[in-house]
């Protein structure tokens, strides 16, 4: 019976990990960060890091699976609605446009080269020094 519970727990943990993307940032952060904090960045509700440095969001192209997965995680909707959201935010003048790159490998490269940038990885893993563990 205990073994069944253990297996169930492990299975649930794996499932939860699969739902959360890996967050990579080129920014030193003093305080712990929650997944809600990161989601608010990816829906354009945060433009600055806690120390006041401006942040930049790096996204994969809209035709990729990674973009769709980011939309589902951050907005809880599909890539179609996520594109509309960013188009609207930029048009309003209330948010700067994200940086779009080809794929997740380019997300890593861009974040590595640009201080203050943040990206999400769903299918590959980034360098340990860029990884941001979430609470």
């Amino acid at each position, binding site marked *: 019976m205990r073994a069944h519970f253990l297996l169930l727990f492990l299975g649930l943990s794996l499932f939860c990990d699969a739902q959360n993307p890996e967050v990579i940032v080129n920014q030193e952060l003093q305080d712990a960060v929650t997944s809600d904090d990161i989601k*608010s960045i990816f*829906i354009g*509700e*945060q*433009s*600055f890091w806690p120390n*006041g440095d*401006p942040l*930049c969001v790096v996204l994969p192209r809209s035709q990729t699976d990674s973009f769709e997965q980011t939309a589902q995680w951050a*907005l*809880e909707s*599909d890539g*179609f609605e996520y*594109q*509309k959201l960013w*188009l*609207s935010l*930029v*048009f*309003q*003048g*209330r948010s*700067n*446009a994200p*940086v779009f790159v080809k794929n997740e490998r380019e997300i890593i490269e861009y974040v590595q080269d640009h201080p*203050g940038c943040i990206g999400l990885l769903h299918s590959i893993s980034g360098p340990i020094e860029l990884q941001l563990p979430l609470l």
Partner: protein
Amino acid sequence: MKHPESSEHSHAPKEVSLRMRLWLQKCAVLTSSIWLLALSARSQEQPVTQLHMFGHMTSSVELEDDGYLSEFTLGEHDFFVQSKLTSRFSFLSETVVGPVNSMGHGNADYKVSIERARLKYEYREWLSLIVGKMHSPVNYWNDVYHHGRLFFPTIDRPQSFGTSIPIHSLGMRLQGQNIGKFNFGYDLVVSNGMSSNDVQDNSLQKSVTAAIHVKPEKQTRISLSAYYDRINDNMVGTHAGHSGPFHYNMGELGWRPVNLSFELYCFSFYRKKGNWEILLETTLNRTSLHKENDPALTVGLEELGKSSNTTAYLYTGRKLGNRNQIYTLLDLTDYEDRDLHIKSNQLSKFGLGWQHEFSPFLKSQIQLERYTGDQNLEVVAPEKWAFRVRIAYCLF
């Protein structure tokens, strides 16, 4: 020899006015210096620029007094530029090209208008400084949709845009957003008044806008705003957006060349959750005679010049599947006949529509509308039905 205007009564205000002007000049020089210093310090960064073009085309059929009218209309084409100049400075502009209603091939004409051109410096979430021409942040619609028909939930703007909404502001704005748990935001704007244009104001008096909003949940926003301005000589320029048929034009019967105090209070509620979307826009507009008027011009107008006008617009939409949406709209105005700026009217518009999105950058809307209202006021309410089809798009 004494100058005719330099009487004892006018001397003190003139001195104050001169001091204020000098003080404003100093402020302008100081602000420009700070901007130039900040720009030069950051100029080594490469700007990132986005260009979009928004456009739309409409077709409509109207039935009024047993007569039909149909037309195809080429809409505004809106060239949108957003450029991140440095990590904290950005520039945004909207330049609109629209056809002018004239006849004859040789008269085919277009108007070009800079609708937004603003430079923004972002210090933190709670403070940004914006200078330039912008849409007045008085309500949700004017702050979010601007000239992008692709974003409009219904084919037309609310009717209040032809009457009391001061669409543009050319001046300076302090902005904060996404502050705290409820994503509190504020906007404070000091700008040229409604009687000005893009080149000159000719007045020390400025319009003032104070707006606040909260976003307690994703895709939910509740906003409140107050706007004050003085309309000089009862004439408005390019920023008012008050369209010709609704306000008294110079020389027209009922037009009085008096200075008016113009107050506007707006409440907006927007929410999108699940399959449902709702937008409520309400306004209360109060106009009265300004204290600075030639007494000879205001004789008998003391009561006539005070009015309280209201408008309400309600949109509710429901998604059907992924790309379709049906919606209803209700749009009401009520302007009193005591108003000296806007002609009295009571207009009602009801609508039922269907929207299909082909992509995030292309959508169509079909709308059935019923217009009615009071026909005994200065603006006679039309009694008509209309059927409209709109295609709106964004290119980049």
